[in-house]
C-alpha cells in the first residue's frame, strides 16, 4: 500500500507516493534520479550508499523510505554549492583520495557526518569513524589525509 512520504532532500522539500518499505537507496537512484549514491553490498557492509539523515551517516540500502518522513536527507549531490565544491570534495580531488570513484560519494558523506559531529577529528577518530567504509582501490592513506586537512581548517 503506497503512502505519502515527505522529507527535505539536499535542502529542498520532496513529496513521494511510494511503498513505505522501499529502500532509500533505490528511491534515490530510480524515482529521484540521484545516482551519486551507490549500491555496493546491499546489507550495510561497505558504505558506498552512505547518505546523511539529519546529522547521522546512514546506509541508505538499509533505510526504508518511511523512516525519512519529515526528516532531512543530504546526498553527495547536495554538498557542493553551485560550482563551488565542499571543502571535503575539494580535498579529495587535491590530495588524490579518488581512484575509481565508486566508493567516493559514500566516503565523503561518511566523513561529512563525522565532521558535523566533531569538527576537530584526531587521526584515531578518523580511522575509527571510517572503518566501515570500504575502498578496494585502497586509497586509504590519502582519504585520511583529505579528511585531516579539512578537520584542521575548522
Amino acid at each position, binding site marked *: 500500500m503506497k503512502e505519502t512520504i515527505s522529507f527535505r532532500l539536499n535542502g529542498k522539500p520532496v513529496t513521494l507516493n511510494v511503498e513505505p518499505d*522501499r*529502500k532509500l537507496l*533505490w528511491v534515490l*537512484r*530510480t524515482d529521484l*534520479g*540521484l*545516482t*551519486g*549514491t*551507490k*549500491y*555496493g*553490498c*546491499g*546489507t550495510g*557492509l*561497505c558504505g*558506498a550508499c552512505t547518505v546523511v539523515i539529519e546529522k547521522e551517516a546512514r546506509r541508505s540500502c538499509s533505510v526504508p523510505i518511511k523512516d525519512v518522513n519529515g526528516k532531512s536527507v543530504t*546526498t*553527495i*549531490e547536495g*554538498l*557542493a554549492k553551485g560550482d563551488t*565544491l565542499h571543502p571535503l*570534495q*575539494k580535498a*579529495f*580531488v*587535491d590530495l*588524490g583520495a*579518488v*581512484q*575509481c*570513484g*565508486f*566508493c*567516493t*560519494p559514500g566516503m*565523503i558523506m561518511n566523513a561529512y557526518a563525522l565532521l558535523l559531529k566533531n569538527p576537530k577529528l584526531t587521526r584515531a577518530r*578518523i*580511522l*575509527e569513524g*571510517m*572503518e*566501515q*567504509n*570500504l*575502498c*578496494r*582501490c*585502497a*586509497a*586509504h*592513506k*590519502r*582519504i*585520511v589525509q583529505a579528511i585531516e586537512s579539512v578537520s584542521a581548517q575548522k
Partner: protein
Amino acid sequence: MQDDISKTTQNSEATLYGRRDFLTLLGGGIIVFFPAVLETPAAQGPPKMGPGAATDFNAYLRIGEDGEVTVFSGKVELGQSNTTALAQMAAEELGVALESIRMIMGDTDLCPWDMGTFGSMSVRVYGAALRSAAAEAKAVLLQLASEQMGMPPSDLIADNGIIRVKSDKNRKLSYAQLAKGQRIIRKLEQKAGIKQPADFTVIGQSPARLDGKAKVTGAALFTGDLRFPGLLYARILRPPAHGASLKSVDTSSAEQMPGVVVVKEEGLIAVLHEDPETAEKALASVKAAFDEPSSPVDPETIFDHILQAAPKPQTQERKGDLAEGEKAAAAIFEAKYLNGYGAHASIETHTACARLEGEKMTVWISTQTPFPNQQEIARALKLAPQNVRVITPFVGGGFGGKSAALQALDAARLAKATGKPVQVSYNRAEEFFYDHFRPAAIVRIKSGLDGAGKICLWDYHVYYAGTRSAEQFYDVPHNLMSTYGGWMGDATKVHPFYIGAWRAPGSNINVFARESHIDTMAAHAKADPLEFRLRNTSDARMRRVLQTAAERFGYKASPGPSGRGYGIACAIDAGAYVAEIAEVKMDSGKVKVVRIVAVQDMGVVINPEGARMQMEGCIMMGLGYSLSEDIDFKGGRLFTSNFHNYSIPRFSWLPEIDAFLIRNDQLTAQGGGEPAIAPVGGAIANAIFDLSGIRLFQMPMTPERINKAKMAV
C-alpha cells in the same frame, strides 16, 4: 538523457557521434594512425592482435580543423588515472596544454580495436606509441608552417599550440590555422624523434586527475547510473553451485505480479521490472529445483586436487645443469608454498545496460575489455560485430576481474527478448559467485647454497600461476623454471569455478614463494637478509631499489630472526623494479603491519603523484591477499558471499606507507598499476619470521595459520 551521458562518462563523445563507423568521423585536420604496440624491445606484453584487430594500426590522434586534439583509444579508465597520464604524454610531444587534449576511450564504434586494459600496459606500451604519434603530428604541423612561412622547420619552434619563428616570435601560426582546410592522414613511421627527458614540461608533472571533480560530486556516471526511457532492471535465476543444472522451475507467481516481465530462454530465466526492488521480489517468488553435482574439494583438499590434475610441465627458463648445482651445494632447501583462491571484490559489481535499436545492439559495460566483449556478444547473439557497439562508462575498479563480462551477454539477450533497454547489475553474492578468481596456486622450490653463501641451485616449479615475476634475477648458475598450467586457459577445467587475472597475475604467489625461500637460505647462512640478497644479485636496478629502500627505512643489518619484525622482498613486474621493507607487530597470531617502505624504478615517470597513488594502493590492497582474503567453498558451492565473510583491508589496517620513486630517465616509462603489489606478501612473511621465527608457507597468513605454525616451531 544523451546529453547527460556525454557530459559525465569517460568517453564523452560516445553518444554525440551516434553509430557511425569511426572512420567516417575523421573529417578534416591532421590524423596520425598508430599501432598500440610499437615494435621496440621496451614493449613487453601479450601479443597485440586479436579477433577484429586492425593489422596496421589500432589507435589514432587527430588535430581537428579547430585545433582541438583528440586521442582515440580502446583503453579504459578503471581508477588508475591512465586517462590523465596518456593525455600528458600526448600534450608533451605535441606541444599543447594538457587541457586541450580530449581522450575518447573504450567505445568500439569510435575507437580502433584494443585488446584491453590490463598488464600495466596503458602507459608502458600504448603510451610509448602515442608519444611517437604525437611527435609525428607535430612534425607535420612544422612542415605545414615551414611551407606557409617560407622558413625551414629548424628555424621554427612549437609551443602551447602555436608555431613561431625562432628569430621573430611575432611571426606565428596556431595549430588551428595550420589544420584548417587540411585532410592529412599519416601512418606512424617513427621518423620524428620524441623529446628527451631534459626537455619535458608536461611529463614528470602531477596535474590533478581529469575525472576528479565528476567523481566527488556524484556526477560521474557508472554503467548502473545510466537511465533510459522504459529501462527494465533484470534479476536472473542463479544456480546454487557451479555445475548445477536446472531440474524444474515455476515462474507463475512472478508472472502475476503487475509490470513484471518474465523471460525464459535456454540457460537464462529472468524477471524484469522498471523498479529493481520489485524485480528482486519477483525473483524471490520463483520456485526452482537444481541437480547439484557432489564434489569433495574444499579449501584444504584443493591443493592435492590441482596437483593431481596438473598438466605436464613446460620449461620456461633453463641455465646450467641442476645435477651440477646439487653437487656444488653445501645445503639443500626444499619447500612448497600455497595460495588459495582470491576475489577481486571491486566495490562496483559487474553491470551492463543493453539497448536494441533496429539491428544495432548497444551495450554499456563495466569492463576492462570492450573489444573482446563486443566479439563475445556478437557471437552469442549471432549478430554482425559491427552491429554491436560497446561503450565503457566509468568503471568502479577492475583489478583483472572486469575482463569477463557475462552480465553483458545476459543484458544483451534480455534486451533482445523484451525489446526494452535492460540493466543487469550483480548483487554482491552474484559478484562473488561469477567472479573469475585468482586460482589456487602452488610453488615448489628446491634450492642449494654453496660454502660461500652463494645460491648454486634453483629448481622452481609453479602450478597455475605462470611465470610472471618468477624470472630469475639472482645470480644462480644452475637454474630451471617449470610451469604447470597458468592462471587462465586450459587450467579452467581443473578449478571448481571461473578463474582469471588478479592484479599482477601470478606475481603475488611467485614473489611470496621466492622471497620466503631466499630468506630461509639467508637465515641458514646466518646472513642479514638484505646483505644476502645483494651478495646474490648483480642486477644493478635491483641492487639500487634494495639499497634505497634500506636507506629510507633506516635498516640496520642483522641475521633473522632478529625479533624486530622487519621483512624484505623484491620483484620485477611489468618492467618495473620494486623493493619493499615491512615492519610488523603480532598479537595472538594477528599481524599488524606498522610500516612499509616501497622503492620503485619504473623508468621515466609520467605523473609522479599518480604513480605513488598506484604504489600506495598496491601496498594497502596487498595486505588483504597477504593476511585475510580467502574463498570458502565446497565443490562448486561458494560460501563466500559478502564483505562479512571476505575480509578486505580497512582504515584501521593502514600502515605508514613510504612510496618512493627512483629517478631513471634513461629508460622509457614502465608499468605502474601492478608492480608494487607483488612483494607485499613476501615482505610480510619475512617480517613475521624476523619477529617470531615462524615461517608461513601459505597465504593468506591468517591468525589460525600463524598459531598452527607456532605450535610446530
